[in-house]
């Protein structure tokens, strides 16, 4: 067991929380009064006037705490790495959280290779994006509020990845959902932004519903929600028949529902494109690099359970592959630069799920890591473009920016090469690993490979379409916008550059054995994560071994084929958007139906609106108006009305007319005497 520096593990989530508190105080007591309408007409001066000093403070605190968290996390990971592979697990219990009878869930953090990868990615990329945000949001009036949310997000995300039990993970899980809600709706005065935030939260909640139920099943099956206990008991219980395949399938399918909600998989992906209403760094951090990958992390974390449910694995793989190609096709027709990237993110997440579904968890996590680099970079780059163009997001109004924003162009281009899977760039290694595993794994199939490879080709196509439309060709910008085009400040370009370097070289962490083996370079990434998956599930190791049965030649051949497909996609993009720029419109005119359907994202949003939202609202309205107000209250008020009208009739006997009273007196006397008479006769 390792300790020492690891005892400071709690600082990793605590530091961002400190940032939340400090920035929160600044936001509430310094910034809020400046923003009130009563404080005068809104002016940009608020940002640079007497409030400027607090902004500097915020600009130091917010990235500072995240940077510090990164350093602490790095130190912890290094100290963890010092231990032998089998001992690389560290649990720190802070305090008991919920205890009721047999149920107990402490606030406890667990650092093992898997969570350390996540923690480093989250804090590292998070730090860069915080720095970037300082530049990007410099004109924003609610500067401190933004960083409060951003720090809060870091806190929740770190809870999610560092938790040592499912319940605490769920806390982070919902916490990031909340921050996503807050940040998407950051510009809440914009109706679409507020709507998108709500949509994200609600769709996520549908997933959380699955997660929650999965957690109940886990507790009542295993008697615990702690990872260590659950994974240790899983083989035992499955051996003695308590944990049947059906039960395992139920648990994992419910978990996958949760993962699909968070990681925007079919059918719950609809919120992610709308989430682009948030500020661009938020899209980069939450909706590309970190939060949306939580689902992948959760499945990888629960690999021990998933491997017991082959049916679920197949569902995960199929949904992953389907999402990958489905959203890639939508990406082709989008014109909003951020939406293209959003659908690309959904598609790439599909790859990660595909990897998990075929049992290649390492590959999934590896792709998660490289994707965090290049997709964050792409978003930040697009943010830089948008920043340069004074907020313009429509690619049809860009073009020829190559010279005007050189750093942005170069870094984005590197990221594009990475995502397209050009050999040598990070995306190549990770994506190819997934492709190969989906083909070779005992749970994979050639069909999955074909789908995934096709999606890779489409990805290369639309990414280069994006680059060509944005940076090459002639300018289609508004003249007014064009005048103000400028390269971004260093706070923005520096993170871009760092991420670009990572996007290029990040892949060398996990060189596939077939390539690296020849040069004696080990697959560092796999070696690092291996204890986690082997400990959790010997079966995974088994699957990996099976993959090794395939020949190296086949692997190299498939690799070359996929690169070829990617190059074809790039070539097609060049042909359509550089060489023959009139062609795309022609195609759209030729097949208006197909184009229209794809352009409208297959009308999925409209379908949900029609099939779910409107039905539910109408049904609820009916329940209220008819059932509640008419039926139940009808009975209640009806009972009251009967009493009242009966009373009204009886009341007339007491109309105040003396004769009436005398008459009832008389009637009473008649009855009374009659009764006495009757009794005397009967006796």
């Amino acid at each position, binding site marked *: 067991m390792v300790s020492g520096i690891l005892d400071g593990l709690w600082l990793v989530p605590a530091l961002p929380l400190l940032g939340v508190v400090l920035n929160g105080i600044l936001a*509430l007591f310094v910034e*809020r009064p400046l*923003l*009130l*309408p009563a404080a005068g007409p809104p002016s940009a001066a608020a940002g640079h006037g007497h409030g400027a000093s607090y902004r500097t403070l915020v600009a130091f605190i917010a990235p500072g705490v995240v940077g510090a968290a990164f350093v602490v996390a790095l130190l912890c990971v290094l100290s963890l790495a010092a231990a032998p592979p089998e001992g690389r697990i560290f649990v720190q219990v802070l*305090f*008991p*959280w*919920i*205890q*009721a*009878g*047999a*149920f107990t869930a402490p606030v406890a953090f667990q650092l093992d290779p898997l969570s350390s990868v996540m923690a480093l990615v989250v804090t590292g990329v998070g730090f860069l994006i915080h720095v970037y945000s300082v530049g990007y949001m410099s004109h924003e009036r609610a500067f401190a509020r933004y960083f409060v949310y951003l720090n809060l997000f870091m806190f929740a995300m770190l809870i999610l990845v560092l938790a040592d039990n499912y*319940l605490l993970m*769920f*806390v982070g*899980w*919902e*916490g990031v959902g*909340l921050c996503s*809600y807050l940040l998407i*709706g950051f510009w*809440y*005065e914009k*109706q679409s932004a*507020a*709507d998108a*935030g*709500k949509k994200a*939260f*609600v769709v996520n*909640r*549908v997933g*959380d*519903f699955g997660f*929650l*139920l999965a*957690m*109940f*099943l886990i*507790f*009542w099956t295993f008697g615990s929600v702690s990872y260590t206990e659950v994974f240790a008991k899983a083989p035992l219980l499955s051996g003695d028949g308590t944990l049947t395949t059906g039960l395992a399938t139920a648990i994992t399918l419910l978990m996958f529902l949760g993962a699909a909600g968070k990681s925007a998989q079919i059918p719950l992906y609809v919120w992610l494109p709308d989430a682009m209403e948030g500020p661009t760094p938020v899209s980069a951090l939450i909706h590309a690099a970190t939060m949306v990958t939580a689902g992948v992390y959760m499945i990888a974390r629960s690999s021990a359970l998933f491997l017991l449910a082959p049916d679920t694995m197949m569902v995960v793989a199929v949904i992953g592959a389907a999402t990958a190609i489905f959203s890639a096709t939508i990406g082709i027709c989008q014109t909003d630069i951020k939406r293209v990237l959003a659908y690309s993110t959904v598609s790439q997440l599909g790859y990660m799920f595909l990897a998990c579904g075929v049992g290649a968890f390492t590959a999934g996590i590896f792709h998660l890591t490289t994707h965090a680099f290049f997709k964050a970079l792409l978003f930040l780059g697009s943010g830089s473009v948008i920043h340069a163009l004074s907020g313009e997001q429509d690619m049809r109004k860009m073009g020829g920016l190559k010279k005007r924003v050189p750093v942005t162009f170069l870094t984005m281009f590197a990221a594009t090469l990475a995502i397209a899977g050009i050999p040598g760039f990070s995306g190549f290694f990770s994506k190819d690993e997934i492709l190969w595993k989906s083909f070779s794994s005992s749970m994979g199939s050639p069909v999955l490979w074909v789908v995934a490879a096709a999606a890779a080709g489409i990805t290369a196509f639309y990414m280069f379409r994006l680059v060509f439309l944005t940076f090459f060709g002639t300018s289609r910008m508004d003249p007014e916008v064009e005048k103000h085009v400028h390269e971004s400040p260093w706070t923005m370009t520096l993170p871009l550059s760092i991420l670009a370097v990572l996007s290029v070289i990040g892949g060398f962490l996990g060189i596939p054995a077939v390539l690296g083996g020849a040069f004696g370079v080990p697959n560092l990434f796999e070696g690092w994560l291996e204890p986690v998956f082997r400990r959790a599930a010997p079966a995974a190791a088994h699957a990996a071994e099976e993959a090794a049965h395939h020949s190296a030649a086949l692997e190299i051949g498939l690799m070359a084929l996929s690169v070829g497909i990617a190059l074809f996609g790039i070539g097609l993009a060049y042909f359509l958007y550089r060489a023959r720029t009139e062609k795309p419109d022609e195609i759209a005119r030729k097949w208006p139906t197909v184009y229209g359907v794809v352009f409208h994202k297959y009308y999925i949003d409209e379908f949900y609106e029609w099939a779910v939202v409107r039905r*539910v*609202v109408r*049904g*609820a*309205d009916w*329940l*209220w108006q008819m059932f*509640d107000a008419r039926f*139940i*209250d009808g009975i*209640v008020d009806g009972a*009251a009305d009967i009493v009242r009208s009966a009373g009204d009739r009886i009341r007339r006997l007491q109309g105040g007319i003396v004769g009436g009273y005398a008459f009832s007196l008389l009637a009473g006397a008649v009855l009374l005497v009659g009764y006495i008479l009757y009794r005397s006769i009967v006796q």
Partner: protein
Amino acid sequence: MTGIDLLDRHLLSVLIGLPTAGAAALLFFPRDGRKAIRNAAFLVTLAEFLLSLLVVARFESGTAAMQLAESAPWLPQYGIGYLVGVDGISLWLLMLTTFIMPITILSAWSAVERHVKEFMVFMLILETAMVGVFVAIDLFLFYVFWELVLIPMYFLIGVWGGERRIYAAIKFFLYTFVGSVLMLVAILVLYFHHYAVAGFYTTDLLKLYELAIPAKLQFWLFAAFFLAFAFKVPMFPFHTWLPDAHVEAPTAGSVILAAVLLKMGTYGFLRFSMALFPAAAADFTPLIATLAVIGIVYGALVSMVQKDIKKLVAYSSVSHLGFVMLGLFAGNLQGIEGGILQMINHGVSTGALFLIVGIVYERRHTRLISEFGGLSKVVPVFAFCFMVVTLSSIGLPGTNGFVGEFLILLGAFRTHMGLTVVAASGVILAAVYMLWMFQRVMFGKVTNEENLRLRDMNGREIAYMLPLLVLVFWIGVYPQPFLRRMDATVHAFVARVEAGKRAALAEAPPGRTMFTRTFDARK
């Protein structure tokens, strides 16, 4: 020294008596001295709260017995005594009552301008009655307090309420009164049954617990108690008085109604229905759990389409109380502890929501959602509080709502899996209706000119909101102090109910449903 001793020995009686004594003292205040009246009422409730903290301090969490118990003969010839005490079930409800009272008094500071003296007197009498309900362990004493609650509440709604206050007040009164009359009949039956079996009359609850009641009789007694408590909770489909009462009641009334009065129903189920008639409770469980789940989903759906914020919150109460009922009738430790905790949570969150609504209403004199929009920009502190309370109501982890809902669903999942799946969908719906409302009120552009001049929360309002927010996070992050003090009692409770259930099963062959068993037995 002796004074302290005396206080210690009669702590609960002091808690019962203090507000009424305060009310009596208020009667001598000059009618025009509103400020003095408000201050005095606030001080009384605050003193009551501080004294009640002593109860927590003296409370031993290791035992299931009634603590700080006091007994005095009252009508000895009828076996009726003045018996009070607290255990793990009633402790936090008592605390919730004393905690929420100073807050409501503060909230009524400027909202109530008419008949301030009468208002405060009613509030204080109400507090006595509510405290009495939770600490009484004599059936007769309980009934007296139970009915006493109705009177001040009736006036609070009927006098200081909104436009349709008379309708709402009468509906509230009659609805709950119908139930309590049935309960009275059941109490009398129980009373005479005890005499027939044990040979002496008593209304001492602890003695009645030991009474073996035949399953057939249990069925009818449970049914009578069920109606009384189901009306109060209110369970679907007996809930329609709630939206009316809430909407028409003044803010302080709504807060007390939501925070404490509804809990009297759920508390009654726990303390009386389930504990006295375990076999019947087992028979009724499927029915009640189903109604609870219908209530959860139904309340949520109906909330969604409300146009009036207060009505929305009222319907959300139906949904939340459905969770509580589901937890109680899960019949296991997790469910019941979750249920009790959720009672507190609902008191805190929904109480706070009503205060929030009250704050806007006081400024704009409307509660229609369509009248608002974009308030976030104008009233930031308010927005912050509203956000936290909304999230707590949704049950976001880290806030109190989550801990309660989680434990309830966890417990209920064991016993009613299918129903719990449906109930868990209420979690989704809660997000839909609360966030939608929040968005329509707080987000977007300020479309209504009047909203631009809205004042943010003032010091007094922040002062009464703050303790609620603290509690939201406290229970959310560290619920142990609350849960631990329930453990022993709930353990014993579950054991007793289980034993009772087994005894009844031994009496009638298993596999019979509630109705067949009851009606077969009559042949």
